[in-house]
Structures are given as structure tokens and as C-alpha cells.
């Protein structure tokens, strides 16, 4: 059976600097995969390579076996990848409701009504400008916006970044719920401990290379190894 998402030997560059060195990873149906690593390890670049925002120079990205390498980002999104970018990238000058009208309507369980039910707070604040929302509300809006594409795979870049611990828990509950509803998830986190609570499988990147892969339970149990690999001693 083909994986929901498979990366095979991605080499990605920013200008002349070689960022990803042959990154391969797989996300199977219904799985939540954590992609961990220190700042600058190449986590965001991996996601940007998947979305073709920074297309990989060599290597292959497949979605359910279909090659999507270097396809225009909108095609990748419509093929079933919901992307929650780093820093959320909300349209700050537009209302919550307008933000939700940006993605095209794709048939499936998720529509604007359903995401308002998932995040009642967004419904309450639907007339507020995106820029006036709290960090947690912006994260919910970014997730809701990605869900409207009715994705098969959700990829999230540092959803806990800059959020208060209570809010982080709320966001993590929402992500756990996505997984229960059958979505496959690729979760990039600096906060490894947090991500490992939810993940089935974990990959660790260092200097653009995969230095560890295996069941999340292994790293969850072996704290010393987790700290050595992903450098999280000061977090969590």
C-alpha cells in the first residue's frame, strides 16, 4: 500500500546553500508523524519542499503514490494537503470570516459551518480582523483554513510557537481530534516532548539530514536520547 505522503531523497537549496541533504520520510494512513529537530535543522524547509514553496532540486514527493514534486503549490493543496504555515500567516487586515473564504470550497465534511463548530471561538470572533486575534485564535484560524480544503494530510509548522501553555494544550487537542477523525498529520515541532505525546512515529532532523527515525514511544521513553537528538532540555 502506498503511503499518504512519501518523501524520497529530497535535496533542497536556498540559492546556493544546500539545506536538505537527501531527506526521506513516510506518513502512513491515519498516522501522526512528528518531525523534530533544533532550530535551523531543516524542518520548515522540508514542509516548504512538500508544498513546492521552495521546490526540491532533486528527489520525489508523492501523495498516495501520485508524484506531486514541484507541482504548483495550489495543485498540491487541492490534491489534499492542508498546510498550516509557520507563524500562521493569517491575513491580518481581513476578518476571520473573510480569511475562511480564501481557500476554494472542496466537497467533503469540512465547510465554514463545520470549522466554526470545531472552533466556536472563531465563530464568536468572525467579524474581527485576523490581526486582532490572540496567537491561539490565529492558530485555530490557520488550522480551520487548512481544513476547508478537506485534506487527506495536514501538515503543521510549529503550531505551539509563541502560545501560552493552556492554549498549546487546546491546539494539541484539536490536532489529536483531527487524527481521530482519520486525517494523517505531519507535525513539525521544536517542542519535542509535546509532539511526542501525540505522535505515532518520529523523525529527527539535524543539519538537513534525518538522524533518527522510529516509533514515538522510543524517544518518549528515552528522554536522554531525545534531548541529545532534538535538544529540548530547556523546554517541556
Amino acid at each position, binding site marked *: 500500500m502506498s503511503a499518504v505522503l512519501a518523501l524520497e531523497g529530497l535535496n533542497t537549496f536556498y540559492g546556493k546553500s544546500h539545506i536538505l541533504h537527501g531527506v526521506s520520510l513516510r506518513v502512513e494512513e491515519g498516522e501522526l508523524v512528528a518531525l523534530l529537530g533544533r532550530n535551523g535543522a531543516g524542518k520548515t524547509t522540508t514542509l516548504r519542499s512538500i508544498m513546492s514553496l521552495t521546490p526540491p532540486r532533486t528527489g520525489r514527493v508523492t501523495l498516495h503514490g501520485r508524484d506531486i514534486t514541484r507541482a504548483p*503549490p495550489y495543485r498540491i493543496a*487541492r490534491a489534499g494537503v492542508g498546510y498550516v504555515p509557520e507563524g500562521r500567516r493569517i491575513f491580518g487586515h481581513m476578518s476571520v470570516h473573510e480569511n475562511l473564504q*480564501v481557500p476554494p470550497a472542496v466537497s467533503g465534511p469540512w465547510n465554514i459551518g463545520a470549522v466554526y463548530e470545531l472552533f466556536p471561538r472563531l465563530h464568536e470572533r468572525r467579524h474581527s480582523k485576523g490581526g486582532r486575534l490572540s496567537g491561539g485564535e490565529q492558530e485555530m484560524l490557520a488550522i480551520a483554513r487548512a481544513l476547508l480544503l478537506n485534506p487527506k494530510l495536514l501538515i503543521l509548522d510549529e503550531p505551539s510557537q509563541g502560545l501560552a501553555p493552556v492554549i498549546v494544550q487546546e491546539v494539541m487537542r484539536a490536532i489529536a481530534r483531527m487524527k481521530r477523525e482519520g486525517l494523517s498529520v505531519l507535525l513539525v515541532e521544536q517542542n519535542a516532548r509535546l509532539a511526542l505525546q501525540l505522535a505515532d512515529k518520529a523523525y529527527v532532523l539535524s543539519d538537513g539530514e534525518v538522524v533518527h527515525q522510529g516509533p514515538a514511544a522510543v524517544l518518549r521513553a528515552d528522554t536522554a536520547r531525545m534531548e541529545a537528538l532534538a535538544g529540548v532540555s530547556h523546554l517541556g
Partner: protein
Amino acid sequence: MEALLIYSAFNGLITGIFYALMALGLSLILGLNGVINFAHGTFMALGAYLAFTIEPYVGFWASLVCAPLLAVVLGLLVERWLIRPLYGRDPLFSLLLTFGLAMIMEDLIRTIWGSVGQPFALPAYLNTPLSGSLFFLTGYRLVVILITALITGGLFAALRYTRIGIRIRAGNADLETISAMGVNIYVLRAANFGIGIFLAGLAGILAAGQLGLSPSMGSSLIMPSFVAIIVGGVGSLMGSVLGGLIIGIASGLTAALYPVAQEVVIYAIMAVVLVIRPRGLLGQEGLLE
């Protein structure tokens, strides 16, 4: 004296409307397409000449819609085959391209329609003053004001309430993100370019009815339109309209009070705005200061 001032201000308002329509299209294209469209003026002239050619067959009112649409067809070809390959590159490339295109198009207009200016025939019922005391108020000028109000009002409503409008606004802020959200930015940018060219074509016909046709009509209107954008604030569509009207009226009034400064006054206004409020009247904070 009072009558003279009202008359001059009104003249200026009409010119300002042409600037405003041009500036609005330029702003749209600068915002989403990231292109400073130096060919905007020649698309304007093209709209006017196309109307001049088809008006005898379809009449004034139909030419008002059809001629800008024909200009849009050419605009979409230009966007697809000349401008699209330059997206994502240094903005200087597209600026040079449209600058060259403007010269080519202007010469094509001279070749096809002749280099001598020509009058644009208006229906007689539009061309007579409405009353003796308001001798400057012709039906045509009312039509210019009404159409412009309708078109700009419609455009702002569309940007606010329709999906494509919402996407254009979102794309102005963050094109990469709307693309990752599943929006086909190639189609969106083409549509946006088309809307801008439609506004230019419409401005051309309306201006031709007032000022007549000449191959260089576009190049003489494009500079004030850039000034309108800077005065109104780069990045603000409403600002472009406001800027166009302000410099139009200012130049109209100066024509009455101190005619030799008529041309220079708009640049003086721009200089003052740039010194006092570099972002322009309605420009976003942080964009230019």
C-alpha cells in the same frame, strides 16, 4: 469669479476622474501582479481608439463596454505571454518590458489610426449643456461621473464581498500563502490584470469624449496617475481614487488662478505629501516609511 472657480474645479474633477480610473487599475496591477505597468496609458489609448472604430457600428453605449473588453483581450495575451515569465523576478524586468511595450503600442496606434488627433463623436443629446447658468455641465459629464461612481463602487463591493475580491486582497498581502491555500494564483493574477486593463480602456473612452483622441493621450495621462497613487498612498485602492480626484481638482483650480503652474501643481502636491506623510493619504503604515 465664483462661477469661474466652480467651473474650473468641475473641469478638474472630470480630469481627476480619468486620473482616478487609471490610478485604480495601476494600483490593482501593482498590488497583486507586482508590476508597474508603464503600458497602462497605451492600453487606455487603445480602448479609446477601439471605441472610435466600433462606435459607428454598435453605437456609443455598446462601445463603452465592448472596446474595453477588446483591450482586455489584448491585455490578457500580454499578461500570459510577456509578463507571466517575469513574475518572481526583479520588478525592474517587468517595468522595462511594459515601458517598451508602451512605445510599441503607441507606434502601432499611429500606424493604424494616424498620428493626427481626432474628435470622438458623442451622441448629440449628451453634448449640450443642461442649463444656461451651469453651462459647463453637459449630459456627457454627468455620464462620466455616474459611470465612474458605478464602476468604482462596484469594484470596491466586489473586492469586499466576492470570493475573487477577497482572494485579490489576501493575495496583495501574501501571495505565497494563498497559493498554499489552494488558490490558483495564475488565474487570479490574470483576472486582476484584466480588471485593471478594463478600467484603463474605460478611462480612455470617457477621456476621448472629453479631450478627443490622440496616440499620445495615454502617455500624457499616465504620469499624473502615478502621482495620484503616491499622493493617495501606495497599496491603497481608495487612496488612488482620492489622489486622482485631488490632483485633478487642484490642477483645474490652478488653471484658473495661475495658469502657468497648472502642470507643475500636481508634482508640488506630491512633494509636499512625500515630505509630510510619506505613506500617502491612505497608505499603509510601514510600507514607505
